[in-house]
């Protein structure tokens, strides 16, 4: 019954295997590749932005195209690059860290990926179908609702579909973490990465529905003639701002929390020390998540909410600095007294601390509501969020990839090339974004297609553009490293970094059933405990027995494809009702696949004990 490994039968079978897989490790690969490609797209867009702003009064691209560029850059980076890359890590690592054979809903896991993927495709199809969305990633109404062409429709459909995927992914991880932990792994013994994924998933669960509703309202206004944002018929444009930010602020913590988890793992592994203040770290994570829902209006200080609202939101926002500070100091003290090994993963993590601290501090400056009347919508804000997003999330993803690459692909990334990735990117990053703080204060608003001569902004912008090229260089070296490692590096051992958590107790990469026997967890840093007692492996919590596995399925792909088709129908039915046929076809495919799914029993199969005994993962 070992059908799950039907590969090595040629390219077609390989593709089919990935299209139908429900194995969280393979889904992690899918997320990584798709998210990585979208990251390159977003990066390319960023380069175009920077080239346009290289000199004053530049005409490299037109005004309309520039707006499309920033919109797509922001949207792509946040929804299609950063989040999927994090999902890649979550999929690759969380089940292993908690000693599980799979996630709670393997089928839904695959569905989540394909929804995200097709949503991202729709969004990017806009480039070839008459223009991309151009109202900013925040898509404020009524600019977005009145934007001509179909650009914003692609934004709405793309995000709606990929958002559904994200929500599904979030629920999947919540249930996985609650229900599937190995015996002995209490909540307070969970590795910090798993904890942050747990909190992040909760944020997804409560934040995304607000976006869903916002997108529906926008879709109805644009496609079906409702008047939510049409002031002439009594609509109110501020509703969108609220809905967007009720989602949008938690979203930035959705991005940052998992990488906080990554850093916690990396600092502790490469200092060979237990994480300092573990329970405080857990508490801080939960607190950040909680406070994250009470601050959204700090993006709207200049909307005209009035002084009371502005003050309340200013103070709640500042409060978030406290739990975040707890984390920064705990990381520093994790290294304190340790024995720090500067691997590439550690280098990214070490670089993260000052970078993110600067970004966080400018965040607190922005939170001073009155002062934000000056900062808002200037390059100061752009600098702030790239410091936290690139300096936090992107650095974190790089750290994680270098750290977990052997677990995901069986080889340690080349260290030398790793450092060559780091330095140009790091230097380029600070060149690009540090100067932007000053550009903002000197009067340069964001989302400006061009700045004029004689405003004293020339040098700063040039430096910024040069920095961006360094970042691109870093990324290219990383891509080279991936290829180089695949061909030239030797196979990695199960535990190449002297790891502390369960994922390092099984081979790299793990067999498709992960754990032959579920391990027994005896404390925080489960593997470290065993190793420090001189044992080589985890003590099993169960005798060797049959392992239950789910079947793969093409249905998630089909369901998502249906929505993809229907998406185009929705977008174009405005022009001609004939397009409604696509809506029916697409929805028919999706609902049909759902129907098939619900009437067909899918109980999975068992790997038999005897087969397990025969070979290690050689099934």
């Amino acid at each position: 019954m070992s059908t799950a490994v039907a590969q090595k039968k040629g390219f077609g079978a390989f593709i089919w295997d990935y299209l139908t897989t429900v194995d969280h490790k393979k889904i992690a690969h899918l997320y990584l590749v798709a998210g990585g490609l979208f990251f390159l797209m977003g990066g390319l867009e960023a380069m175009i932005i920077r080239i346009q702003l290289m000199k004053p009064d530049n005409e490299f691209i037109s005004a309309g195209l520039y707006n499309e560029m920033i919109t797509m850059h922001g949207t792509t980076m946040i929804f299609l690059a950063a989040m999927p890359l994090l999902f890649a890590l979550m999929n690759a690592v969380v089940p292993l860290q908690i000693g599980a054979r799979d996630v709670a809903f393997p089928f839904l896991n695959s569905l989540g990926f394909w929804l995200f993927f097709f949503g991202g495709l729709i969004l990017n199809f806009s480039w070839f179908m008459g223009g991309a969305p151009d109202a900013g990633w925040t898509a404020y109404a009524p600019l977005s609702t009145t934007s001509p062409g179909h650009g914003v429709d692609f934004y709405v459909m793309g995000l709606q579909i990929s958002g559904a995927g994200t929500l599904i992914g979030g629920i999947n991880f919540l249930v996985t973490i609650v229900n599937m932990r190995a015996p002995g792994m209490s909540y307070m013994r969970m590795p910090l990465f798993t904890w942050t994924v747990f909190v992040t998933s909760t944020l997804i669960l409560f934040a995304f529905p607000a976006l869903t509703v916002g997108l529906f309202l926008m879709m109805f206004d644009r496609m079906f003639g409702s008047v939510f944002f049409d002031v002439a018929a009594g609509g109110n444009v501020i509703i969108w701002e609220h809905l967007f930010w009720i989602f949008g602020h938690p979203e930035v913590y959705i991005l940052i929390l998992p990488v906080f988890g990554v850093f916690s793992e990396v600092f502790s592994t490469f200092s060979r020390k237990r994480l300092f203040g573990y329970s405080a770290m857990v508490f801080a994570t939960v607190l950040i998540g909680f406070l994250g829902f009470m601050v959204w209006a700090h993006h709207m200080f200049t909307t005209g909410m009035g002084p009371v609202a502005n003050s309340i939101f200013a103070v709640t926002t500042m409060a978030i600095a406290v739990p975040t500070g707890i984390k920064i100091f705990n990381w520093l003290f994790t290294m304190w007294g340790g024995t720090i090994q500067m691997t590439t993963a550690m280098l990214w993590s070490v670089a993260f601390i000052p970078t993110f601290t600067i970004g966080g501090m400018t965040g607190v400056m922005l939170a001073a509501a009155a002062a934000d009347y000056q900062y808002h919508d200037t390059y100061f804000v752009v600098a702030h969020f790239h410091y936290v997003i690139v300096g936090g999330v992107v650095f974190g993803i790089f750290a994680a990839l270098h750290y977990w690459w052997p677990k995901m692909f069986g080889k340690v990334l080349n260290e030398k090339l790793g450092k060559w990735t780091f330095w140009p990117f790091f230097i380029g990053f600070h060149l690009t974004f540090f100067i932007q703080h000053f550009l903002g204060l000197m009067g340069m608003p964001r989302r400006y297609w061009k700045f004029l001569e004689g405003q004293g902004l020339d040098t700063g912008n040039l430096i910024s553009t040069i920095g961006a090229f360094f970042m691109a260089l870093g990324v290219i070296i990383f891509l080279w490293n991936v290829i180089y490692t695949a061909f030239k590096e030797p196979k990695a051992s199960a535990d190449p970094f002297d790891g502390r958590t369960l994922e390092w107790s099984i081979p790299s990469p793990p067999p498709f059933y992960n754990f032959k026997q579920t391990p027994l967890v005896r404390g925080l840093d489960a593997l470290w405990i065993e190793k420090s007692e001189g044992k080589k492996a985890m003590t099993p919590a169960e005798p060797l027995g049959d392992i239950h596995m789910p079947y793969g399925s093409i249905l998630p792909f089909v369901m998502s494809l249906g929505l993809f088709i229907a998406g185009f129908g929705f977008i174009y039915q405005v022009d001609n009702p004939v397009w409604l046929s696509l809506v029916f076809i697409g929805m028919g495919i999706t609902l049909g696949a759902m129907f098939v799914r619900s009437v067909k029993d899918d109980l999975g199969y068992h790997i038999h004990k005897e087969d397990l005994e025969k070979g290690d993962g050689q099934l």
Partner: protein
Amino acid sequence: MTKDTNSTPHNEFEKAEHKEEMKHQVISFVMMIIFTIAAFAVVATDAIGKYFAIPIILLLAVVQVIFQLYYFMHMKNKGHETPALMIYGGLAVAFMTILTFTTIIWW
């Protein structure tokens, strides 16, 4: 394959327990109906002024929902700690959303 599994033996004690629970559920249903009628009555008869009527019907709704969640959806039973946490999380976010939207032009 058994067509109808109700012939399999079943624990009498559990059956009694289910019955007991069912009784509670019927009681809560009756209460809910009463609350609903009360709420409609408040509005239909115009008996109380607007400023009292709104809080009263909202309160009646909240109580009803508690019945639904705790009795019909079994949130009172054990094994529902995590669901309860999540529902309350959702309600907290919901509460804040609605609060801002009702005071959308702040004071």
